[in-house]
């Protein structure tokens, strides 16, 4: 790791100010990817501005069916929230299977979606739920937030403050682990929301998380795993790597989608 200066931000304003002062600085919200990358000397931020200790960014609030998860809320808190589980168990299940216990107590939802690893779990939930990403300056719809591999719609210095969504009527998540890293080799989040059925796929797309229109249409007319039988998955848009080629991933996308529907009930 190259030398870096660590700052523990006390508020959102403090964080934005620190970030503005340090052109080569980075926000840190768990560091589950950033710290490893720095240890390998593949990233060299001059300053790290830690968001995990900003009280306003932590916690889950529920207002009717509207759910707000603070950006610095660790996965373990999401997994353990009884109130959230009563409204949307799928996101609790998803959070409870990210990484290992260490990761779940350090990693945060804001850190995960701001990094937008193509194999991360949370992007599938945020996109699948049609959530809104709140930042220090605006709100961004999930459909506009994820723009490519490790790419998101944030401006320089902008930070995620919360993720908000309406609890879906039904939702489910199924993932197939990469045997080595245990990241999602394919993960599919399905949700029946007020604005329609949404299906988001992570771990498989060559441009990162994506929605599957064919699955959404099929499930909109018939919410059942069998409804997906005749729908094809285009392998040409999928990743090929050491562990899974695009053809196998295309199979997994369909199998996991069906299992997600079954899990959603």
């Amino acid at each position, binding site marked *: 790791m190259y*030398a870096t200066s660590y700052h523990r931000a006390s508020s959102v304003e403090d964080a934005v100010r620190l970030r503005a002062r340090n052109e080569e600085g980075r926000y840190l919200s768990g560091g589950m990817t950033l710290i490893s990358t720095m240890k390998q*000397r593949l990233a060299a931020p001059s300053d790290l501005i830690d968001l995990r200790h900003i009280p306003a960014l932590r916690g889950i609030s529920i207002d009717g069916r509207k759910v707000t998860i603070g950006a610095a809320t660790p996965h373990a808190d999401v997994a353990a929230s009884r109130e959230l589980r009563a409204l949307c168990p799928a996101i609790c299940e998803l959070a409870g299977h990210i990484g290992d216990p260490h990761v779940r107590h350090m990693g945060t939802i804001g850190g995960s979606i701001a990094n937008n690893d193509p194999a991360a779990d949370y992007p599938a939930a945020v996109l699948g739920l049609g959530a809104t990403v709140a930042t220090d300056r605006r709100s961004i719809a999930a459909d506009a937030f994820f723009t490519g591999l490790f790419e998101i719609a944030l401006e320089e210095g902008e930070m995620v403050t919360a993720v908000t969504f309406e609890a879906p009527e039904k939702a489910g998540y199924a993932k*197939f682990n990469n*045997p*080595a890293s245990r990241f999602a080799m394919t993960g599919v989040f399905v949700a029946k929301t007020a604005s329609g059925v949404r299906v988001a796929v992570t771990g498989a797309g060559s441009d990162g998380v994506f929605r599957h229109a064919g699955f959404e249409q099929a499930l909109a007319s018939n919410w059942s795993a069998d409804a997906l039988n005749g729908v094809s998955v285009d392998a040409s848009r999928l990743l090929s790597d050491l*562990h899974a080629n695009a053809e*196998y991933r295309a*199979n997994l996308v369909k*199998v996991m989608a069906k299992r997600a529907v079954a899990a959603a009930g």
Partner: protein
Amino acid sequence: MGVEGIGARVTRKEDKRFLTGKGRYTDDMIVPGMKYAYFIRSPHAHATIRSIDASAAKAMPGVIDVLDGKQLQADGIGNLICGWMIHSKDGSPMKMGAWRPLAAETVRYVGDAVAIVVADSAGEARDAAEAVVIDYEQLPAVTEAVAALAAGAPQIHPEATDNLIFDWQLGDPEATDRAIASAAHVTEIEIHNNRLSPNPMEPRATLGIYDSAEDHYTCYTTSQNPHVARLVMSAFYNVAPENKLRVIAPDVGGGFGSKIYIYPEEIVCLWASKKTGVPVKWTSDRTEAFLTDAHGRDHVSKVKMAFDADNRITALKVDTIANLGAYMSLFSSAVPTYLYATLLSGQYAIPAIHANVRTVYTNTVPVDAYRGAGRPEATYLLERTIETAARELGVSPAELRRKNFIRTFPYQTPVIMNYDAGDYEASLNAAMQAADWSGFAARKAQSEAKGKKRGIGMSCYIEACGIAPSAAVGSLGAGVGLWESAEVRVNAVGTIEVLTGSHSHGQGHETTFAQIIAGRLGVPIESVNIVHGDTDKVQMGMGTYGSRSGAVGMSAVVKALDKVEAKAKKIAAHLMEADEQDIVIENGEVKVAGTDKALPWFQVALAAYTAHNLPAGMEPGLKETAFYDPANFTFPAGCYIAEVEIDPETGETDIVQFVAADDFGNIINPMIVEGQVHGGLAQGIGQALLENVQYDESGQLLTASFMDYAMPRADDLPSFKLSHQNTPCPNNPLGIKGCGEAGAIGSPPALINAITDAIGNNSLTMPATPMKVWQALHAAH
């Protein structure tokens, strides 16, 4: 016997320190003035070094010096060697290319060490390394052994034409070919044994300390055999004469073979310590371990197994190509030859066997012994082949094996080994019973009812442990003898130190070796300390590998203990005015049999040291040394059964049961033996389902971290069902065989046999990842 003697489940004495973080590993060693090394490694798989410019790096903060291979050569430091000479079948010696501790002209794999930066901190050393400018001219590279032999392949060493190191054979080619020609059935199969990275929990590390006042070197290192390291560094690398070099291997966190060898880093840090005048420490990180620790396996073989009309095996013919990587590591030549082809008879009476082995250079990490070393390759080949034959012949795989078992001992195989004892059917029966083999069909039907594919597979392995009779291995090309030493040192108060040339790096020697003493003398196990791993403390020894510490190391302890007891009896007889023949030692007392005369053990020890009243002419003291040279290998054997359930939608394999029935001979500590079997099974299952070293075409290592190299985790493994059969080894005093490698040797074929049984497609290579199983399943249907 006794609660702490042979056969007792004594909890491990060493675990308190390991489990409370008090272990002392090489990286824990801090000495005054110590500095840190960073090795600059080749980013290319094959290149010539045009120039190295370290001027900017030397001026950076904290940097003591930057040293390169030309300086190393100028100081007369020698090349790394392979210590086992193999001759090709045309009589020519193996073609050993030069392996310089720091490459001076050519780099041959990604990770080949080129230069070293010594600095005040590890971070400053690494910073400065980035400022060293090395101009490489890239050369074409080859990573696969078969491709390296092909015409037009890049040439890696000038000494080895067509990258061929040796073309060796064992057995009778004519008799084998004749038997195949007249066979009723011949099974042919191509077998791939995947390349593995050992991944001990503790990465390699070394601390080189040069003392200019004494012209003496101390080397702390993560070694399985510190005396061998000292010998090789003295005799071949010109680091220092043995009396001026102390090698200490303190607590070592796993080795699995990878810490047998002497690597460039030990040599370079010792040399750099003299060069810079400061102690120099290096600790590998995990990616460096993937890039530089000797890999294992990597064989491609063509096999023919011939049967007569009664399904008896009449011949086995094997043609193997083994990838040895960019350089010949210390024991690399022995692994695919005398540790492999000699086990190709397995548990079966096969009248004619012929094995041809070609070893090949490639632009990859050197390949050497890894848990099992040759025997897993032989077992996988044989047990996949016989399973395939059973399917082709339409007979039960268990019955085909049973029909061909060796049943009389000693048994001379056509491939050197002389099996001393065994009862293969006992293990087969025990395993089949434990697995409820006969109930499989019903379980398969249940799986099918829920849309799953179920399969069952077995593997009957044999291996050779306790390497080995020195004269025998010497005649086969070994550069060393493979005996072991022990000193049993009784203190004046009766407590005991055992100095052993074996080295414990996870095996639990501090417990099991102490059990031998505690059991024999009837003294508390706490009164026995095991000393190992320091060439200044312990007499010459050969170290730990090949499951030899029990069969060879403990036998040396027994021999030394025999001498100690004999002397103690003489002293006791003198003190109690009894006949020496009537003296017995038990329960911590030295007694006159059949009387109430007895002396506490400590009193005899004290008498030996006060020397006030010893038999006439007897030397004072109570301390004896023994060197034990085994009469033969030992031959653990057993039967493993795997039962799997496959999810046809994803290709995922669930191991629903795994049964291991092992014959290790007598067992010192069943708990530790079970732990060894569990660990071996985890590694074997890792090889079968998960682990695979992969390079890209340019020679870049794609699996250089745990993000891409799949290590088995606890939840990948079932709860194992173990049992032990016991035919004591007749050739060593304890009747023990060795248990460290069996799990890794026997399990891969059992699993692949089970998976291929489930999916109905025999074309499946390890690791059987979900994708490969899914592909094979869909290819079959």
